[in-house]
């Protein structure tokens, strides 16, 4: 009697190797929620409602005169600019001799349903800037905004130029005339913004998160895990680094209803900021009123804030010194990771030193 050959998929070696790989993947994914992030020591210097202003601890006095005030997006965790040691823009700025402050907007609750962007720009940012002035003893600072934080920073600088020596924007959408797929998804006649904010006083973080992932669904939903399974076989693969990034990507923050409505209606649908018709607290917000030096950083493969939305700022501000650095990469990739270290950070460091 002859025995049938064992089918290749039942080969014990393959079965156990695949089983181990599956378990390693599960361990990497499940362990990411506890991945250590935002480890650079910092002290709380001011708080208002859920917002916190932190000053990063320097071991030696700052060698640069102008402190850097980081304004982060509302829908992401603030630790993206201080992801982990060696992959931290904050750490880089400290090593360059700057005093670094960061505003973390925190997580809004139902009681913040009426909190809009106007309130954040006119009541939170000026007070935080005053605290920075007092803490450091410097009259002016560099305001650096990332993504939505960049749009907020631009509004703040337009309304309060007295606080600002320089403005730096990282992939900040400003002109929504050609807003790409996000523009299509949030178009006035298709996006039920009123019903959404009526139903959810605090818009769940998954709403903008799913919208962003749908910009490249194959890569975001399948590619991430395919690449992980591949990399787990590489002994040099930095699992902790992957976990930190995975944690950030999946740790979305809810959006206060009024802020979300204002963002979609006044920024995306009506494009008020770029058209110069945005008003906050009865005051016009004109980008032409920004006269300080401006550095705009755009990413070549940015699907979240396409080049057309970010690059307009240099022609809209009234500054004589407005330049743009175009970095190869995507919306997040240019800020953290190996490419950030090689491209973005040195570019920004040089610019800040020459504008100190």
């Amino acid at each position, binding site marked *: 009697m002859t025995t049938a050959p064992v089918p290749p998929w039942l080969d014990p070696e393959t079965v156990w190797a695949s089983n181990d790989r599956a378990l390693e993947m599960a361990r990497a994914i499940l362990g990411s929620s506890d991945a250590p992030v935002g480890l650079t020591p910092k002290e709380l210097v001011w708080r208002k409602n859920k917002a916190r202003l932190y000053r990063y601890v320097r071991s030696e006095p700052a060698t640069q005169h102008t402190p850097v005030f980081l304004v982060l997006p509302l829908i992401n965790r603030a630790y993206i600019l201080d992801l982990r040691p060696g992959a931290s823009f904050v750490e880089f700025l400290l090593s360059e001799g700057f005093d670094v402050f960061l505003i973390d907007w925190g997580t809004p609750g139902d*009681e913040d349903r009426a909190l809009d962007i106007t309130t954040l720009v006119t009541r939170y940012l000026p007070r935080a800037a005053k605290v920075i002035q007092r803490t450091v003893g410097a009259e002016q600072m560099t305001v650096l905004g990332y*993504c939505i934080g960049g749009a907020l920073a631009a509004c703040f600088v337009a309304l309060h130029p007295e606080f600002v020596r320089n403005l730096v924007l990282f992939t900040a959408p400003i002109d929504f005339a050609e807003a790409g*797929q996000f523009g299509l998804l949030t178009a006035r006649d*298709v996006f039920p913004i009123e019903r*959404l904010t009526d139903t959810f006083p605090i818009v769940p973080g998954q709403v903008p998160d799913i919208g962003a992932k*749908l910009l490249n669904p194959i890569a975001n939903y399948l590619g991430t895990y395919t690449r992980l399974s591949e990399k787990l076989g590489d002994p040099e693969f930095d699992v902790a680094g992957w976990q930190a990034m995975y944690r950030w990507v999946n740790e979305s923050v809810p959006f206060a209803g009024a802020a979300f409505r204002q963002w979609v209606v006044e920024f995306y649908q009506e494009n008020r900021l770029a058209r110069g018709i945005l008003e906050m607290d009865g005051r016009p917000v004109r980008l032409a009123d920004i006269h300080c030096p401006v550095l705009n950083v755009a990413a070549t*493969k940015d699907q*979240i804030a396409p080049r057309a939305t970010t690059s307009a700022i240099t022609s809209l501000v009234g500054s004589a010194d407005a330049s743009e650095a175009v970095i190869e990469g995507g919306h997040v990739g240019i800020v953290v990771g*190996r490419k950030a270290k090689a491209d973005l950070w040195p570019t920004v460091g040089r610019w800040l030193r020459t504008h100190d």
Partner: protein
Amino acid sequence: MATRAQSNSQSSGTPTGEESAGRSEGPSADPFEMWRQLYETNERAWTQALDQAMNRPEFGASSGKMLETILAAQKAVRDNMRTFLETINVPTREDIARLGELVVGLEEKIDQVADRLDTIEDAVRGAASKRTR
């Protein structure tokens, strides 16, 4: 919005030439390897197909309708829950949120008072320094 393009932030994970050569020797029985080959062969086509399907106003309109339907269902659940909690005399989320709003409003008022004190302090300091000159 600043989220999500995990693919953008990670290294490409592209296999080395040696690895690719090893993999191309024949069909693998490893399910991960089979998936990788399937993914690598089709990723571009899938992405292109989805891009074409989704980068159109019709997709925006359809997803808007889908969202509206989900919201209608969600709103019905919320309304029913609120009615139920009110009937059994238990505070609803809205009741607690209203309390929280009062606290947040109070904090803003304190901030406004602090701002005014700062302005007065600055003015007094300015006047004092003028007198000493």
